[in-house]
């Protein structure tokens, strides 16, 4: 009897606690209930969707669309003044200047040779970095998906660089690769000749690709790993019972089912590669010469760091870069949709 009474008391206390906790929520709902009813009455059920989307659209409009249009307006002006109202309208002159080139494959024939050098460098960087990043991330994820000893530890090891600031990443690798850096110290210790890695055009470029992969691979590995863990185990068991070879299992089961994740990773890596700036700026500063100068650094130098800044030219270059990113994103969307359609047909 006493037991029943205690349970009842506890139940009452639980109820009253829950009710007390819900009171502010009910109060808040009471406050917004009336205006929401009014909105629904005024704009209908369809209008409610727009009402809830409005805050997001406002933020998107103010922080994304508006700057884009302001940037476009800047790209149509000339001079060194910062305020748009103080600048002279020059039409498409800045774009003409960027495209004033007799041979696009040879930047020395272009009026803005450093822009085209940066475009070429960025192109090569994207090809190398995206390919290697996807490859390394996929292999690492496949390994980390196995029953390894201390698996969580290894996952943390690969993810750790993602937590570092790009400036820290750049500085760490600068200390390793510079003339009197850790790598040369090690080489010297083992009797090899030291090499000035960051002064050599090819090695400096390779370093930017390598450092970028080291710094971000953990994040993409994690996405692929999540995809691998979502693949049903029974498919592998069935393949094993059929005696299917490991490579065939990979190409016929793992890869197709991983494709949605891989597509996301490809797009993210691609966009990040086109925008590369921070760690490279710290690591090489765009040198030696201009061999690791990428488009984002060109825009920064032209618009902000040069002795006489040219915001119009920087804005034109950033609009062109934005267009490339839009095209890349549309290609990804197209690929994704065609995959979805194929999947639906099957």
């Amino acid at each position, binding site marked *: 009897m006493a037991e029943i009474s205690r349970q009842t008391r506890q139940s009452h206390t639980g109820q009253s606690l829950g009710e007390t906790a819900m009171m502010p929520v009910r109060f808040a709902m009471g406050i917004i209930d009336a205006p929401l009813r009014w909105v629904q009455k005024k704009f209908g059920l369809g209008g409610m969707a727009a009402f809830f989307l409005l805050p997001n659209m406002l933020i998107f409009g103010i922080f994304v669309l508006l700057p884009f249009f302001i940037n476009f307006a800047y790209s149509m002006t000339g001079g060194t003044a910062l305020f748009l109202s103080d600048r002279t309208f020059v039409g498409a002159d800045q774009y003409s200047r960027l495209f004033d080139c007799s041979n696009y494959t040879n930047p020395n024939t272009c009026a803005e040779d450093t822009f085209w050098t940066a475009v070429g460098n960025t192109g090569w960087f994207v090809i190398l970095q995206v390919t290697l990043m996807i490859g390394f991330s996929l292999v690492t994820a496949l390994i980390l998906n196995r029953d390894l000893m201390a698996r969580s530890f290894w996952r943390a090891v690969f993810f750790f660089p993602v937590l570092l600031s790009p400036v820290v990443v750049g500085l760490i690798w600068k200390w390793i690769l510079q*003339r009197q850096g850790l790598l040369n110290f090690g080489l010297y210790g083992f009797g090899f000749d030291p090499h000035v890695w960051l002064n050599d055009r090819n090695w400096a470029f390779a370093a930017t690709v390598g450092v970028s992969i080291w710094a971000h691979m953990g994040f993409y590995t994690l996405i692929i790993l999540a995809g691998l863990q979502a693949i049903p185990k029974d498919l592998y068991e069935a393949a094993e019972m059929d005696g299917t070879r490991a490579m065939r299992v990979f190409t016929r089961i793992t890869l197709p089912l991983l494709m949605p994740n891989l597509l996301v990773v490809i797009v993210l890596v691609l966009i990040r590669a086109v925008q590369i700036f921070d760690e490279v700026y710290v690591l090489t*500063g765009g040198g*030696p*010469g201009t061999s690791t100068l990428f488009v984002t650094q060109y825009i920064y130098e032209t618009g902000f760091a040069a*002795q006489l800044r040219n915001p119009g030219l920087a804005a034109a270059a950033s609009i062109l870069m934005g267009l490339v990113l839009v095209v890349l994103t549309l290609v990804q969307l197209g690929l994704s949709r065609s995959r979805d359609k194929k999947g639906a047909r099957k």
Partner: protein
Amino acid sequence: MTKTRTMLAAFAVGLLTSTAALAGDVRIMWYSDGVEGEVLKDLIDRFMKDNPDIKVIIDNVSFSVVREQLPVQLEAGDGPDIARLANIKALSKHWLDLRPLVADSAYWDKNFGDQADWMRPDGSNQISGFMTQITLTGGFANKTLFDQAGVALPGKDATWDDWAKASKQVAESQQIPFPMALDRSGHRLTAPDLSFGANYIGADGKPAALDDGAKSFISKFIGWIEDGTMSKDIWVSAAGSTYRAGADDFINGQVAFYYSGSWQVPNFSTKIGSNFDWVATGSPCGPANCTGMPGGAGLVAIKYTKNPKDVAKVMDYLASEPIVKEFSERTLFLPAHKGVIENGLNFKTDDAQAKAALGIFVTASTGLSDLARKLPGWAWSDTVYGALVTRVSQAAAGEMTLDEAYTRIDADIAAKVKDSAL
């Protein structure tokens, strides 16, 4: 509607008062090469003790922040109340005219008048601020390395070739990476350019095309980088006009001869200490002269300040003779103040090398070419320096020939002149 407007106005006023500087607040943007930040803090603490109604806030930032971010803030009509910076001429339209605000404008004209043009718009007589230090480019030699190699230090009128030859012998004997180093800076490159007879200023006051004087030193310089006489690391270590100093290589005993300037003296005194003996050499000679390049850092008041009277009070204090004297003696900087120079200084250091080096720079300051004296007050100096650094470093990295670099330097400068006319 009226109610809404009132509410909006109240909100706007609230927002403004929360972001604007408070009355009596004076914010100084300051960068340091050595100990001058600590000395300034000490001086300002004393000022605030005597002037409790004025609160001075010192923002210590890096040189690159002042160089790259301050101009953008100023263009937006924003920024600190006072700033210490090197490119004082190019940004002179943003400086506050202190003439009607300072206690005694005649004192300012008398003591800082020689450099007043360096920091005011052409044709104006405004008092924008004063030079916290006068600098002069010049060389430093690692005497210990020269002695160990048994190579005599080249004498007072030694040429750039003499220094290159001697430094090369030292580097070969002492197994150091580079005989010579020169900062990645257009200002530094300009001193030897002038000593080889260069003239940057055209008949119309605008930049002239690169002449034979400049070309002859630049070609020599690139040749030295190619044959390993001059440090390649510093010049190819970045793209664009980014500044890079070679001071760390000299401090670490990695170069025999380093061309930089007088502002390195306190830095070397602190960091080299008794590790090795070093001497200032003045500027090596070229066929035309043995000039160095003057310059320095100016402390200027910014016209967007909300507290011009307080700013003028702080500037009056920092420009006063006893404060300038104390600042220079403690920081080992050469002062710009005429009275302080005339009455003599007792630099507060036990380092005989630093004292001797400062003496060399004081002597060298009397042998500057006319053009070297004119360039700090010329509006296009920074434009020329930027183009020089960008293209010479590309030639140093083997990306373009010297002729291509010369053509690009002229084209870059012409484009900047055209842009600024819009």
